[in-house]
Every structure is written in C-alpha cells, then in structure tokens.
C-alpha cells in the first residue's frame, strides 16, 4: 500500500509534464502539433481535403440543376433551392404526396412545350454521321502517316496540325456564303439546292475541324501493329485496302473506339457551327443546343424547364464518359503528347 502511494505522485507528475502542453494549447493547436510531429499525416489530410473540394465543385452544379428542375413553377427563389427543391416538404409524404411537393413533371413538360426529342434526335444524327465520316477519312490518313514512308510526309503532317490551330471564325464567313448559295447540282438531294438548314452544313465543317485529333490518335495505334501481320495478309492475296480494313483496323479496335468516342463527344458538344448553320427550328435539323436555348429565350421564367432540358441533354454524354472513361483519358493524352 505504502509503495503504491509513494509511486503515484511520481507517475502523476510525469503524466502532468507530458500532458500539460496539450491542455494549454487547446483543440486546434494540439491538432497542429500532431501535424508537425507527423508530416505524413498532414499531407494525407491535405490530399483528402483537395479531393473532396474537387468533387464538390465539379458535381454540385449538377445536383443543384436537378433540384432546380424539380422545383414547381411558382416556387423559384434564391434561398429556397440550394440543397432541396423549392417547396420540398417531407411531411407531405404522410399525406400521400409521393413527390413531396416537388414537380418531376418538368421532365415531361420539356417534351410537350417544345419538340425537344426532335432536337436530341438531330444532334444524335449529326454526331453519328460525323463520327463515321471522321473515322473513315482519318483511318486512311492515319494509316498513311503511321505506316508508309514517302516524300513530303512531315510537311503534310504539319499542315494537318496547323488546321487545328486556326479559329473556326477564320473559316466562317466564306463557308456561310458557300453553304447559303444555291447549287443546281444539289437540287435533287436538298429541296432548294442550298446546304443551309441541312445536317451536312454542320457535319462537313465540324468533322473537318476534329479530323486532325482523330488522325493523330489513329496514327499512333496503326503504327504499333507489327509489319509482319500486314505482310502476311498481302502474301495471302489481300489487296492493299483489304489489308488496311481487314487487318490493321480490326487489330487497332481500341484506338478506333477511342477516336470514335472522342469525335462523338466533341461533335455532340460543338457550338460554333451548330448554332450558326441552321435557322434554329427543329424541322431544319437544328441540334440540341437550339432546343436548350429556346427554353432560355422564349420561356424566360420557366427555369425548371431550362434545368430539366439541360439534364436530359447531358445524360447521354455522362453515360458515355462513365462507360468509356479509360478510352477518353488515353485518347486525349496521346493526341496531345504526339502533337
């Protein structure tokens, strides 16, 4: 007993000397002291803070857009819509109101107020045809630059690169004039002989502008196929073009998919020519962006429809990004590193 009592003050004194600074510093300073004694911990903290901040800034606008689209027309207000839609009230659930005071009907109104589905269809059609055109033309050019040796290869490659440097505005005035002109040759295809208000007025310039990136991506993939495989196909009696489309292209399927996904996204997202080459009416092949903008222009106070139409238009791209994330990353970085 006596030994115990003799030891206690000693231990207590020892503990006091180590604990004393902690008590004096308070919560924040103690935390800082720990960070200083263990820097790895501080770096990890900083890392998670950064990551969460990035995630919040990139994803919160979409969440807020969803909340805005669910807000009923009468309830728009700056304070009411931040984390929940305006008019949101959980207690309404007990009264049998499954929507809890929100208005999911906006996602249907988008299609009844305007033929929004037609705009989306136009965009998909333009992006699909444009992607096929880009892949076809870029496959031929990528094969040439990736696998053949000939005079003038580097200057021609640089010429392709230079095109991607120029602003579309530098091409616009003559192109607008060209596409508004009436050509008698085109009359059997388009009603009045002019390409204005025809999908090709968007497809042609946009696919030409995104051609260089596709050429560079495919060039890299095609050059990696061993020569022996192509030679074997040629010895078996395949034509030159046959070897390209039956051996090189199938073996570079991941590269073709990468170029395809990137072309589709960029053509679907394109603004400049898409907004200037049609009258803006859905029956004149106006793409999705005109649909979203007409909610902004014609129905000034229907903010929920603006938000809902934006969410609908961004969904296909969001799904594509989640599915093809690896391809997008490799394509973007490869195109840039090579250029």
């Amino acid at each position: 007993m006596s030994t115990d009592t003799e030891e206690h003050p000693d231990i207590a004194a020892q503990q006091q000397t180590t604990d004393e600074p902690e008590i004096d510093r308070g919560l924040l300073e103690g935390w800082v002291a720990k960070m200083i004694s263990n820097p790895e911990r501080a770096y990890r903290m900083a890392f998670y803070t950064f990551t969460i901040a990035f995630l919040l800034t990139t994803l919160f606008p979409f969440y807020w857009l969803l909340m805005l689209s669910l807000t009923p027309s009468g309830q728009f207000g700056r304070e009411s819509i931040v984390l929940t839609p305006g008019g949101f009230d959980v207690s309404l659930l007990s009264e049998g109101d499954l929507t809890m005071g929100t208005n999911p009907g906006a996602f249907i109104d988008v299609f009844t107020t305007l033929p929004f589905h037609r705009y989306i269809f136009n965009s998909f059609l333009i992006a699909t045809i444009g992607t096929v055109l880009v892949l076809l033309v870029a496959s031929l050019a990528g094969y040439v630059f990736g696998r053949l040796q000939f005079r003038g290869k580097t200057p021609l490659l640089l010429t392709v690169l230079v095109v991607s440097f120029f602003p579309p505005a530098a091409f616009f005035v003559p192109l607008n004039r060209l596409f508004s002109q009436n050509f008698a040759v085109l009359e059997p295809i388009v009603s009045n002989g002019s390409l204005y208000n025809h999908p090709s007025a968007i497809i042609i310039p946009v696919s030409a502008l995104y051609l260089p990136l596709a050429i560079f991506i495919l060039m890299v993939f095609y050059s990696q196929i061993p020569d022996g495989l192509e030679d074997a196909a040629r010895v078996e009696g395949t034509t030159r073009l046959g070897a390209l489309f039956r051996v090189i292209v199938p073996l570079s399927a991941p590269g073709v998919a990468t170029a395809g996904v990137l072309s589709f996204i960029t053509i679907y997202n394109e603004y400049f020519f898409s907004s200037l080459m049609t009258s803006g009416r859905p029956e004149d092949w106006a793409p999705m962006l005109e649909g979203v903008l007409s909610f902004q222009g014609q129905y000034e106070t229907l903010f929920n429809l603006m938000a809902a139409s934006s969410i609908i238009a961004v969904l296909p791209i969001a799904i594509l990004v989640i599915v093809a994330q690896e391809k997008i990353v490799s394509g973007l970085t490869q195109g840039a590193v090579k250029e």
Partner: protein
Amino acid sequence: MRPLNWLETQTEAVYAYILLAPAFALLGLVAFYPLLQTLRFSMLEDQTAAVDVFGGFIGLDNYIDVLTGNARVPRQFIDITTTSGFPYLELGAPLLRQALFVTLAFVIISVLFETLIGFGQALVLDQDFRGNRWVRVAVIIPWAVPIVIQAMIFFLVFNPNVGFLSDPMQSLGLFGANPLASTRDSFIIVTVADIWKTSAFMALLILAGLQSIDRSLYDVAKVSGATPWQRFKYITLPLVGPALIVAMLFRTMDAMRIYGLIDSSVGCSTVPSMTCLVIISLDQTRRWATASTVAFLTAIVISLFVFVYLIFLRDTGGESLA
C-alpha cells in the same frame, strides 16, 4: 475490281497520296480555301445596302479602320488613341468592351487558373487510392459537358431570380444587382465557367506527363531525405515542364476562340470576344468585309501566341514536338 487492281500497281508514295486525298479534300474545303477567301473578303468594301455584300477592292482600309477603332460595328476590336500628355494613351471604350483586350484578359486569367487547378487535380489523380477511378470520372465530366449546358448552368447559378450564388456575391460587394447584364460581372462569370469546365482537360494532359516520370527518382530522393516539397520542386516540376507547356498551348488556342459560352450565357454584346465580334458584325450590321477582317486578325493573334509557345517549348527542350 479494276480500280483496286490499278491501285495495287502504284508506288508507295502514289498510294499514300491517294489515301490522303479525302482528308485533304475535306480540310481544303473547310479550312484552306475559306482561310484564303477570308483574306480576300477582308480587302473588299462593305456594302450594307446593296444585294451583294461585297464591293470593290479597297486594300488594307478595313484593317486600318478595325485597328484604329473606327470600324462601324457595335463593338470595337481595339480602340486606343495616343495623346500628347500623360498617360499618352486614351481608351475609346472600356477595356473589357474591346474585343482584343477582353479576349487576352480572358485567356491569361483562365489559362493561369486552369494550369494551377489542373496541376492540383493531376497530383491527386496520380496517387493510388480507393475510388481513384470514380474521382477521375467526376473530374472528366465537366470536360465532356456540352458548351450550351455549361453556359446554362452558370446562367442559372448567377441568375438574380433563382441562382444561389448571386446573393453571396452581391453581399461580398463583388457583383452588382444584375450580374448577367454588367460587362465586368459577366466577364467573371464566363471566366469561372471556363475554369470549371476545362481544368479537367489540363489535369489529364499534366497527368500523362506525371506518369511518364521514373518513380525510382522519388525513392532515391526519399532515401536522401528530401521533403515532399523538395521532391516536387526538383523532380516533378522540371520533368513535367514540356507536357505542361503543350497543355497550356492547347488551352490557350482553345480559349482564344471563346464564343459559345459567351453567346449562350451572357450575350456577345456584353462580353465581346474576338469571335463574338465576327458574328456581331455579320448579324447586326451586315458588314461582311469587316467581319472577315476581324476573323483574319483573330487568326493572326492566335498564330503569334502559338509561335511564342513553340519558342518556349524549344528552349525547355521539349522533344515531343516535331
């Protein structure tokens, strides 16, 4: 079969040129021919009242009008006059209402912030941690968002009727009552929107540079007792330099042609970028020759920037560029 057989007998060079023909036909139609036409149009006279929008050849008169701020369009490309006394320069219009300066300011601010934020994101994505894949998807999504929807998001967020950011910005004294109508506030909105969307693109390009760095260098540095900051400063930064400059070159060229974001959120008259000015001149005044002049000057300004970057890249020893 005949055309294919004929193709088989050609030399490799001829075969190469034939396969390149479609690509160059497309580029010729959409890029080379229009560029030359733009140059020709820019030397013709404007005819706003006649059937044909172009008059006779007037040489460089359009360029002189545009560069001295005397072009008859709603916004000027550059509008500065020299004066005899201090400060020797006088602005004809506010700086942010002149196409050249508003574009340059936009490019410099947005590319600077995008590089910094993109670098941060790249350093995060470079780490191995659980959920890395999903963080990467979240970072790429803004890049993949259509321009019109990016514009719509920021139009709504800063809208005085519904936006959750318009009140805080006003109480901080940063924005006026209607930010979407004031040139300065709109400029900030457009810049923030651009940074939000394209930092991810920078991050991906810088990440590619980071991942090409030999990891054993970091181990050596750790054993020698280098702090993480020293490892970043003496290993990461110098080795990622060329990739960083290439990424900045891409972003600069892209930021120079800013149009869609402005047109669909705050309007081209409020923040008149260079491309906006081309479209304003066409739509609002029917001055096609002046529009061509502005368009060609835009191309020249961009070429100058590309040239400066290429010199920079050569000096930092970037061997990836031909």
